[in-house]
């Protein structure tokens, strides 16, 4: 952990819909260090994907960055034009999309799809780019003999490996993985997570993983941010957040994952079915004053409903956005 590779300051991304403005990302700040792994976790609709896509301005038509800075090696990407970003996109920052199964062109050979991406960004010959793809295939654990096959001949895990190869094609410094293992089987998920970890170490890559699965993020990321309704509610070192979750939302989320519970309760031999979080996740169109979580929080008081909580440092690399964190037993 030295200099931040990516520094996001007070990022705001809003969607303009017929029903009004949805503040999908509402003022978040975080940094990702060179060669380090960072994770975003939260339930559907909390803004984690929007936060990551804003970094490379890959937003839908109605989405717009309304404020804040995205500093990549000191340069503000948020202020650049779409064309400038497009040129930078795959070379500096690449992305592994959600649902990799459907992100490949079914009527194009795998080799063609990857060489095309390389040749868009770099001026190299076809044989040279093929050679690079062969190397990429070996790197992600695929047999280079399968280079000229079509996507339907690959299994889900293999397609995901192709997507990772594609993301690595132009030697990026930062790779964003949007739910990279969600549609995969448990066994394949473990293999893909291992592969990402290996690549991160050997290529000195920085990674941002996005997942709804807290146990995946705890497992795969050194640092993480828990998001709720467009805001970061807790952020810091994974191990630290796991052992001492401070925000009421994080605490309840941890209890909702049986694999995390199994780890904890294995020692005690107890088996208790925890309680889920009362109430519904807020609609992004709703305006909630103060802490966004206060309507569902049993510890909330008047201050929580009026004032936005500020970042409080409660440990080494551990920040929480809650007024009452130290009052909760």
């Amino acid at each position, binding site marked *: 952990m030295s200099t931040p590779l990516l520094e996001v300051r007070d990022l705001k991304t809003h969607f303009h819909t017929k029903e009004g403005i949805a503040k999908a990302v509402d003022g978040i700040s975080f940094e990702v260090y060179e060669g380090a792994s960072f994770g975003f976790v939260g339930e559907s609709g909390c803004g984690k994907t929007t936060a990551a896509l804003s970094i490379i301005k890959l937003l839908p038509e109605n989405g717009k960055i309304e404020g804040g800075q995205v500093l990549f090696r000191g340069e503000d990407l948020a202020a650049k034009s779409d064309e400038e970003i497009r040129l930078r996109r795959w070379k500096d920052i690449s992305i592994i999309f959600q649902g990799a199964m459907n992100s490949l062109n079914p009527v194009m050979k795998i080799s063609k799809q990857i060489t095309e991406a390389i040749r868009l960004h770099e001026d190299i010959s076809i044989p040279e780019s093929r050679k690079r793809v062969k190397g990429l295939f070996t790197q992600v654990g695929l047999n280079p003999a399968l280079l000229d096959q079509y996507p339907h001949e690959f299994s889900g895990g293999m397609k995901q490996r192709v997507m990772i190869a594609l993301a690595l094609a132009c030697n990026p410094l930062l790779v964003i993985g949007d739910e990279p293992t969600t549609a995969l089987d*448990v*066994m394949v998920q*473990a293999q893909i997570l291992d592969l990402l970890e290996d690549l991160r170490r050997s290529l000195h890559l920085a990674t941002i993983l996005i997942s*709804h699965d807290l146990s995946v993020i705890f497992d*795969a990321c050194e640092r993480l941010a828990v998001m709720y309704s467009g805001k970061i509610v807790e952020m810091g070192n994974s191990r630290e957040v796991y052992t001492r979750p401070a925000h009421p939302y994080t605490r309840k989320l941890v209890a*909702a994952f049986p*694999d995390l519970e199994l780890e904890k309760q294995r020692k005690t*031999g107890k088996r208790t079915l925890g309680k889920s979080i009362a109430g519904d996740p807020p609609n992004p169109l709703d305006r909630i004053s103060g802490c966004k979580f206060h309507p569902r929080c049993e510890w909330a008081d008047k201050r929580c409903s009026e004032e936005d909580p500020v970042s409080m440092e409660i440990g080494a690399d551990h920040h929480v956005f809650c007024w009452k964190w130290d009052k909760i037993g």
Partner: protein
Amino acid sequence: MVTIQNLSVVYTLKAGLSGLFKKRKGRTVKAVNDLSLSLEKGEILSLVGESGSGKTTTGRALLRLIKEEVKGTIRFEGKDVFSLSKQELKGFRKKAQMIFQDPYQALNPRNTVSRIVGESLEIHHPDFSWEKKQAMIAEALEWCGLKPVERYWNRYPHELSGGQRQRVAIAGALILKPQLVVADEPVSMLDASVRLDILSLLNGLKEEIGVTCLFITHDLALAWLISNRIAVMFAGTLVELGSAGLIAEGALHPYSKALIAAQPSATSSKERKRVIQVERKEDPAAVVFCPYYRRCMQATERCGKELPPLSEINPNHFVRCFNCRPNS
């Protein structure tokens, strides 16, 4: 209550265009292979395995929801499910219900909640008065935590959240007070915060109405949390069976161990136990062999030539492996 004996289900794949010309027969896939299992009254038994291990096929066979030819017998309250008469089958359908994985697809988008939940009443109890039906629908909705009932009565599925939809699906399955419920990955499509609600709902119903439940999941930790016993399947074969605590903490079969190691872990990421993938080709002359032979780290020569029996290694703990020793 339910006894499955030597169940085998074989799917025949369509031969495709080339098969049409070459008069080739379609390949066959053994989805379930010689599976024996019994469910006690009022217990939740989890079937765990990776995709393609035959867990859903087993669940569907149990409810006679597959068209393929089935070998072996499934007895429900002493009667063979596959040789029921038409009349008896109707009675069986009343007592055995299924909860599907995807609540977004399982509900008819053009029907209101009350109609979806009351649908099976129309089929099985057309003679009931409307007042009685209404009371039963309201009761089922309340069981499933959809309170106050009036708020949901005339809603359409698209107006509900994922968790609420799954509750509606469960209410529809439970309105006739079935004795057996097959729940096929009922929470895998739901957000974490609602997942626990649905699980405690199932758990509560087990205790209140005494439903017997076959819970199908790929998540061993989830199975551990909810069930009395866990059965681990691999490639259509039952490889390990025992109480939930026993399997979660002291699994013996190499595949069950690999499943546990594959679970994401918050504490051991630095020295992660790798899920080591061995690729081994079986002897082409061998007719039977351990289904896990190809991927097993502990396999010996014998595993490639014989199918290990499902043997009781510890009391009430069954493992299909030559190389497993009892817990001391």
